[in-house]
């Protein structure tokens, strides 16, 4: 009996080192970052303690406020668009179709293309091709539409990953569920709503959290498409944290921004997980 570890002991032996690793490379640096948020550190050289000044500034900074509004507006639309299209695409790619592998491969390519390529190509499409077709100005130079252009590009890129997760979720749905459903006469929407969807809810909630997180932290697409313009209308929170913290001299201030942002996203995600968690339990 001594030699054999109980189930719980095994789990503990696995979990504790993993938690230690995680603490060391995530929480520890976060605590140091938290410390910097009380200084006027520039990222190098000497610095002074400034108490809560950075936090006080944060709440009176119009630019930060604007970036929160933009980021949430953007993340909400992008999450919805991405998940709806990805779920449809996953169902389609999981269906009885020809050239399945090729199609799955093609739809995956957007996720692999680097920011430079995506920025150039979509910049070109929005600047030259779309205006030539629609006869209107470029979406990217209009403060009212630039953010939608970024939603399109961000969704275009992340649909690949979201679809992949839905597809692997669909693999856990045994085929006999469909067959049983077919006998009952459930087809199309009904079969999806009553049979398939409940089974992939864990993947739905994972995707909601992952895409919400990715979009709230949007940075690459902004750098590739607008660099925060036009007229500072597409500055995301991560854009400010990175550009002004690392590139500029506001490391301390932006650390404070990052801390607040972290708390906000955790709160949203806990809410999201609880919400979908309840749904899972109901079923």
């Amino acid at each position: 009996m001594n030699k054999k570890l109980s189930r719980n002991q095994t789990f503990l032996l696995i979990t504790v080192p993993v938690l230690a690793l995680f603490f060391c490379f995530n929480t520890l640096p976060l605590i140091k970052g938290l410390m910097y948020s009380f200084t006027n550190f520039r990222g190098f050289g000497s610095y002074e303690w400034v108490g809560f000044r950075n936090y006080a500034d944060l709440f009176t900074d119009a630019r930060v406020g604007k970036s929160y509004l933009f980021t949430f507006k953007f993340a909400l639309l992008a999450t919805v668009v991405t998940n709806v299209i990805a779920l449809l695409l996953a169902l389609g790619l999981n269906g009885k179709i020809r050239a399945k592998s090729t199609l799955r491969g093609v739809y995956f390519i957007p996720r692999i293309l680097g920011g430079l390529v995506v920025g150039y190509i979509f910049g070109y499409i929005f600047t030259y091709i779309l205006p030539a077709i629609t006869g209107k100005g470029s979406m990217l130079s209009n403060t009212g539409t630039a953010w939608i252009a970024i939603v399109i590009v961000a969704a275009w890129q992340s649909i690949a990953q979201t679809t992949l997760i839905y597809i692997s979720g669909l693999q856990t749905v045994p085929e006999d569920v469909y067959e049983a459903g077919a006998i009952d006469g459930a087809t199309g929407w009904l079969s999806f709503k009553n049979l398939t969807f409940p089974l992939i809810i864990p993947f739905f909630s994972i995707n909601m959290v992952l895409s919400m997180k990715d979009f709230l932290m949007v940075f690459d697409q902004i750098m590739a498409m607008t660099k925060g313009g036009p007229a500072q209308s597409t500055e995301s929170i991560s854009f400010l944290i990175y550009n002004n913290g690392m590139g500029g001299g506001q490391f301390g201030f932006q650390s404070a921004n990052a801390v607040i942002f972290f708390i906000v996203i955790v709160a949203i995600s806990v809410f999201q997980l609880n919400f979908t968690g309840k749904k899972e339990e109901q079923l």
Partner: protein
Amino acid sequence: MKKRVIATALVAAMLIGTVFSASGCSSEPNDGKTHITMLQYKPEAVKAFEKMEEEFNATHDDIVLTIESPNDAMTVLKTRFIKEDAPDIIGIGGDVNFSNFVDAEMLMDISDFEGLSLIKQAYKDIDKNLEFVPTEGVFAVPYVANAAGVLYNREMFKDNGWEIPTTWDEFMDLCETIEKSGQQPLYFGFKDVWTCLAPWNALACDLAPADVCRQVNKGETKFIDEYGEVAEKMLELLEHAQKDPFAYNYNDACTAFANGESAMYTIGSYAVPQIQSVNPDMDIDSFVMPGCDNAEDNVLNSGVDLQFCVTNDCENKEAAYEVLSFLLEDSTIQTYLDDQNAVPCKDKEFELSPALDGMLDYINEGKMTDYQDHYYPSEMAVDAQIQTFLIDGSVEKFLNKFDTDWLRYNRDIIRKVQEYEAGGNK
């Protein structure tokens, strides 16, 4: 079975890993020689620096020079500072990063370096002005500069018989003449916000005091009183732009100018290689931004593009000076100029790119001022604010915001400046 596959994969991966790490690892050789490392921020000039490194090491037995030209060098440099593993010499631009490094006391005072006497006074002054608070000592050797103003298509000008403008009215008249001939006078790439700074800086050199930022920090003036004319003239320039200049980026504008879609382009000499990559045979010349009503009042916009600083971590100052002296030799500078389009800061005549013909007199006379944005904190995003203003069109709103934002972003510096001023008066 599965387990074995995984185990094999893991071992294989680890093996590859060790092979790579073994080859990637090189500890400092203990050969009794002095080792100097230099990190410079222009990866595009890597070939010139490789050649310099080779020449230096061939002619110096006791010093081994290693020059690194990493990509995204400013990030790399900042991480090196964090790791307390700073290079001995850094090659950076004369911009706000330099000001910050001086302010954070990371650079060595090199006022006893003899080579400094070879440098044009105008560039030494430019570097001195970059210090937030006047600091005792010299912290950089200006190496090469770039200049900004208006680039023009020499062939188009010749074919149409257009004259180089020397005053603001002439400039605006020229733009109208070009428009009347059915051609495009100016092309902007304002989607990339930083390009908004090019005409802004060039106009500010003509129309605002060179030390306006320092005056504001001292509390002597406000931007709304100094930048008004600059802002107005930016709006006038915009009238002669292509349709929707905010839809096009720097690269679009370079390509358009290269393909003859516009006669002029308000940008710096640094854009010439990108333009000529599209049209290698293009004959480009430049002129100083004629912002003033009196031709004699115009000043060239020129700043230090590359300068060398010795860091405080450098243990062997003599060896570092030896390297700096080598870099300032005429033949070394020529190596750099053969590779890169630049204006040397050394007080001697070198052959310059024909694209600088129109600015030559100003360069030789030293009639120039630094880029205003070198004094702006990058987090204030003045470039984006200018773009916002150009879209919005309200000078007053823009400059009022400029003044309030300035006080906020420069709070710590202003406090230091005022402490310094108060101390000086005692």
